[in-house]
């Protein structure tokens, strides 16, 4: 196999794109954990449902309308879940918190089965996203460019919200200590709901940009949630920059791992996750794991 520039470049592009998708999901996951303190196992489920919903909406209208609507719908569903379910377990035993979102995963599996059946589904071709460009001999399809730019734009928007607005400051305050924030008169309960909805909205955007590129199939929720955990761990939970860094690392490890150890690529990822947790539990950019 010729390890020439264009092959390495192509793998880098593939890894980068994949990484950007992971970033979208991991950022939501890490935001939810940072503020609410909940590990949202159902994050992949919301992502999966968004992909299916995007396809259905796109079939009846078009992709772009679906792309705007789907994440909003999922975010609303997320808000309902938070309000009725999650709210009751913030102070509960760790096991209860884990199993609540786990329960949502189980429900999500059958929701997809009931509404969309078990055959894999595919988004009808989006004309604007066909074709691609060549950069330095490496092909970059428009659908991938779209994924990268939307993720980047989202990342920037997220940064702006968190660091340049009042709400963002409040959210960051809650990440550090939500009880203190509460005593300062901030409506922490409503904030929690909004943050959860934001996290789900991010997962929804991930689903929307992934839809033109992959098929929707049951089981994609489990597949992606484990990778999201790996990303969040490596990058550092609670840190958005960590999510980005972790996502890019995992994405690139996956693509290049193929060239080196194709059979064991998946064990590789878990190995990386394990090593990070052993050597530096807080991840690359996270805060200390006390």
């Amino acid at each position, binding site marked *: 196999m010729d390890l020439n520039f264009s092959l390495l470049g192509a793998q880098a592009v593939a890894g980068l794109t994949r990484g950007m998708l992971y970033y979208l999901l991991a950022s939501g996951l890490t935001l939810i954990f940072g503020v609410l303190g909940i590990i949202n196992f159902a994050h992949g489920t919301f992502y999966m449902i968004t992909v299916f919903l995007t396809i259905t909406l796109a079939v009846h209208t078009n992709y772009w309308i679906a792309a705007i609507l789907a994440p909003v719908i999922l975010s609303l569903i997320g808000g309902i879940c938070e309000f009725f379910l999650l709210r009751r377990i913030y102070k509960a035993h760790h096991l*209860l918190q884990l199993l609540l979102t786990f329960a949502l995963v189980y429900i999500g599996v059958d929701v997809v089965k009931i509404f969309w059946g078990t055959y894999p589904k595919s988004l009808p071709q989006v004309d604007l996203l066909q074709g691609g460009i060549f950069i330095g001999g490496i092909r970059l399809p428009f659908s991938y460019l779209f994924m990268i730019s939307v993720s980047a734009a989202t990342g920037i928007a997220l940064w702006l919200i968190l660091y340049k607005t009042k709400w963002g400051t409040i959210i960051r305050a809650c990440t550090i200590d939500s009880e203190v924030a509460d005593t300062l008169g901030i409506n922490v309960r409503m904030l929690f709901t909004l943050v959860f909805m934001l996290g789900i909205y991010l997962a929804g955007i991930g689903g929307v940009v992934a839809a033109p590129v992959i098929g929707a199939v049951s089981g994609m929720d489990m597949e992606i949630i*484990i990778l999201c955990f790996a990303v969040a761990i490596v990058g550092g939970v609670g840190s958005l920059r960590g999510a980005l860094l972790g996502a890019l690392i995992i994405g690139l490890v996956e693509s290049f791992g193929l060239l080196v150890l194709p059979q064991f690529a*998946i064990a590789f990822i878990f190995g990386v996750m394990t090593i990070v947790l052993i050597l530096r539990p807080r991840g690359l950019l996270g805060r200390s794991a006390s």
Partner: protein
Amino acid sequence: MFFGKKRRSIIGLSLFILLLALFLPVVLPKFLTFLLTEIIIFGLFGIAVNLLVGYSGMVTFGHGAFYGLGAYTVGLFLTKTGVPFIVAFLLAPIIASFFGLIIGFFCVRLTQFYFAMLTLAFGMLIWAIIYKWEKFTGGDNGLVGVPLPSILSSTQAFYYFTVCVVIICLIVLWRIVNSPFGYTMRAIRENPERVRFLGINLTRYKLAIFVISSGFAGISGGLYTAFTKGAFPDYASWAKSGEGLIIVLIGGMSSFIGPLIGAAVLVFLQQIVTMIFQYWSIVLGILLLLVVLFLPEGVMGIKEKVRFQR
């Protein structure tokens, strides 16, 4: 005060259940005996998990790995070597707790979230190795045709074997959780700082309970392989770890026998539901939600609720 009131009620209840357990296979159809065997094995796994979750406050998400290790130990030794069954079976907890020692060494230093994540990561790593090391473990095909000694070949004989093994395990575990060591673990769960202040090395105690727990998880895995005469990578997956946590929750994490009850509920419910309805997953999800929100102490917690509802 050895035969004090509380002791008597426990002994009475245990005897009742024991008699029921021994009597049942005689009257019940074979398939039900199969299910009971499955429940008992699964219950042992849940009790092993509960050593960490309920008694020590350490929520572990990787115990499926030890279950799988126990399963594959029995499976591999019996299919690839000629060792007698009892040897392979005893090796299961040994190998599982050996790995428990290594994995626990790294995990018990961490708290809560990171502990759960690292146990998950190790669990997935072990699953991935079993799944990928096809030449050795059979990979995604799994191992089948695990030979059992002929005395265990009938459903009833295997059931009695399982009951015996599990009763021995339960007695041992009961002694452990009600020993000073067990009470120390409970104290660590409630207030680690204070325990540390008393001069106790938390890490060593946590590691000890982790190893013990992984050993018993290994026994349950070994039993299951003997039960199905096969081992599959699925046995070490995080779904299996999740199931362990689910039965702990449903049965009641503050109760010793809770996870066994949880196992009974889960297996029975699954069998009944799948006989009439094709969507089991959503039923399980809703059940979990209801238990988490309305009955967090599990089935065994009902008596507490009744007690305080005066």
